């Protein structure tokens, strides 16, 4: 085992896939010549090692970056492009939503769009609502896209490698705060299949379903509740689409209680989808109404004291758990 931070793990995945497959290339704004010396950032050092032919700094043009990926993918390459922050997904979205996601279907399966769009997301930096806005539910609502949101360095590495090899367009959302959190990563090849959730901590009393940065919040709450002899099972969805219903339902059937936790705003958030699946397929096992713990339905505040209370916390999660126990 090696210990890596998530940014480094993503870097390793990109590096290994570029070495393995000459068709893999990267494009984005400032991915080559970046603004920091930090070796912890996902694309650090790649320009130097792979050259400007494969690591392309582009003009400030999200639509063209996403379009480049769509075109290059259908012509047989394996683009991995970066949209700097999740809210700028809007500028790239025509290419992703109307093209990357639909053209295989429209071509009767003849054309393939094996591309990955990496985006940074997550609040907590005082960067304000035009930089911080978790939009994973938008992507999840578009048939034809796969949506991945890892929580650990090992998951990020294994899932990104799978995403790059996947024949479908994959939206790969990385929480900025996780870039700097260390975790164990196997030395040997890691491949984590897209569409597999993982129980990050077993427990008997209540299931918490979550992903990305909120997994850490759930584990913190689980630790605290364990002291009160409350067993919280933490299911890390890892992939939103396609969702691993089996793992989710097995956990709910076991505990009979469910809280869904995400950072994104509540209305239309992905917790609603998780809840609907559970209601449809495990209703009889529920011993209490389910709960959602999410960001409130407002733009992310920029001021640190407000932002702190905007983000779901272990306290909020524990309160929700206590309500249904």
């Amino acid at each position: 085992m090696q210990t890596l931070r998530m940014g480094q793990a993503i870097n390793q995945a990109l590096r290994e896939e570029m070495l393995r497959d000459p068709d893999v290339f990267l494009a984005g704004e400032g991915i080559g010549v970046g603004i920091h010396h930090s070796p912890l950032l996902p694309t650090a050092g790649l320009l130097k090692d792979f050259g400007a032919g494969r690591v392309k700094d582009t003009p400030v043009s999200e639509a063209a970056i996403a379009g480049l990926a769509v075109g290059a993918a259908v012509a047989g390459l394996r683009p991995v492009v970066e949209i700097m922050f999740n809210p700028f997904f809007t500028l790239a979205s025509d290419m992703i939503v109307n093209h990357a996601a639909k053209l295989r279907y429209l071509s009767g399966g003849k054309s393939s769009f094996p591309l990955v769009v990496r985006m940074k997301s997550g609040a907590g930096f005082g960067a304000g609502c035009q930089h911080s806005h978790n939009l994973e539910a938008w992507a999840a609502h578009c048939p034809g896209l796969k949506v991945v949101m890892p929580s650990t360095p090992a998951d990020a590495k294994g899932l990104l490698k799978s995403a790059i090899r996947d024949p479908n367009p994959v939206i790969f959302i990385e929480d900025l705060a996780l870039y700097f959190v260390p975790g164990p990563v196997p030395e040997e090849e890691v491949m984590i299949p897209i569409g597999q959730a993982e129980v990050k901590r077993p427990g008997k009393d209540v299931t918490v379903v979550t992903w990305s940065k909120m997994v850490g919040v759930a584990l913190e709450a689980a630790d605290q509740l364990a002291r009160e002899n409350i067993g919280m099972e933490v299911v890390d969805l890892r992939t939103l689409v396609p969702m691993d219903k089996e793992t989710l339902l097995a956990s709910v059937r076991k505990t009979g209680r469910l809280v869904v936790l995400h950072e994104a705003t509540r209305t239309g958030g992905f917790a609603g989808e998780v809840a609907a699946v559970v209601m449809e397929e495990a209703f009889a096992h529920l011993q209490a109404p389910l709960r959602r713990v999410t960001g409130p339905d407002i733009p992310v505040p920029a001021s640190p004291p407000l932002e702190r209370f905007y983000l779901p916390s272990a306290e909020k999660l524990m309160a929700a758990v206590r309500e249904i126990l």
Partner: protein
Amino acid sequence: MPRKTIQMEKRIDYLGILDADGKLDAKLDPDLPKELLLKLHRAMVLGRRFDERLLNLQRQGRIGTFAPISGQEASQLGAVATLRDDDWMVPSFRETAAEIWRGRSLESVILAYGGFNEAATLDPEDAPPTLPVAVPVGSQMLHAVGIAWAMRYRREDRVVLTFFGDGATSEGDFHEAMNFAGVFQSPVVFLCQNNQWAISVPRSKQTRARTLAQKALAYGMPGIQVDGNDVLAVVAAVAEAVERARAGDGPTLVECVTYRMMMHTTADDPKRYRSDEEVEGWRAKDPIKRFEAYLVKRKLLTKPGIAKIEEEIQGQIQQAVEGAEKRMASLGDPLEMFAHAYAELPPHLEAQREELAAELRDSREGGGR
């Protein structure tokens, strides 16, 4: 049919009036009133010194990330100085000095960089109309065309000045805004502050075009490139564009060639992507230095006079910092986050607000966090 060159009725001019040493090309002198010259000088110095102080506050963790304007004082102040008070300004995120010219208080700027929406409420009700900063690069140019539409719709002779950077010209939004404005003959002045960098990407990698100004031609509007470190040239070029817009003769693209002397924002390290020599080369073309040299030569300013202005500005900044910090200490009630998402508080948000209020009460009772 012959193959021949199509003659364009419009050409791209370059305008410079004050050279780097402050020597005036008298033929081109816009002959600005003395009061305006001195007001511009003071605003430029204020812009620079305020930047330095903000950087200090940021480094001490007293405010968040911000985008410095140093080096671009002439570009932005020369441009807004041509506006009437009822004209609109639509900024990107790097026009602090221009916003202050338009009536924004220093306190409001500090508060905004501290993350507080309350900043907006500090501006006087009757301040010249100005949109808030836009983070998504280039997006504001589209708003500018919409505002211009509203001006024409109401048959008002007000114009819209919108700012953006060299990087923004690569966004689709730039091209769509320029095209709309050309087709609709909108009263908009598109002011590009070409500061040579878009974070770590140099101007040369942004577009293959020789100038940014020439992009105007494709949309059927005049374009001009200006020495953006020469405040007289900026005033002259933008005044012409504003006049054209006001007269109903449509939009103009003005490219101010300038330089971002500091970092992109306080989150980056420019040494990583550009050389000290490059920065020093531009320091020699500093907009304030040359303007001061000119004003001293014209005897509108003296060395002791400049020192006095500097001192007054430091006092003004100090007062604003103290005021803002006092205000910030009283702000930060988490429940405020629900205040402005909608014009009214819809029921679901009222419930979410109540949830947070209960949590805050509990945490106070339980010792709090």
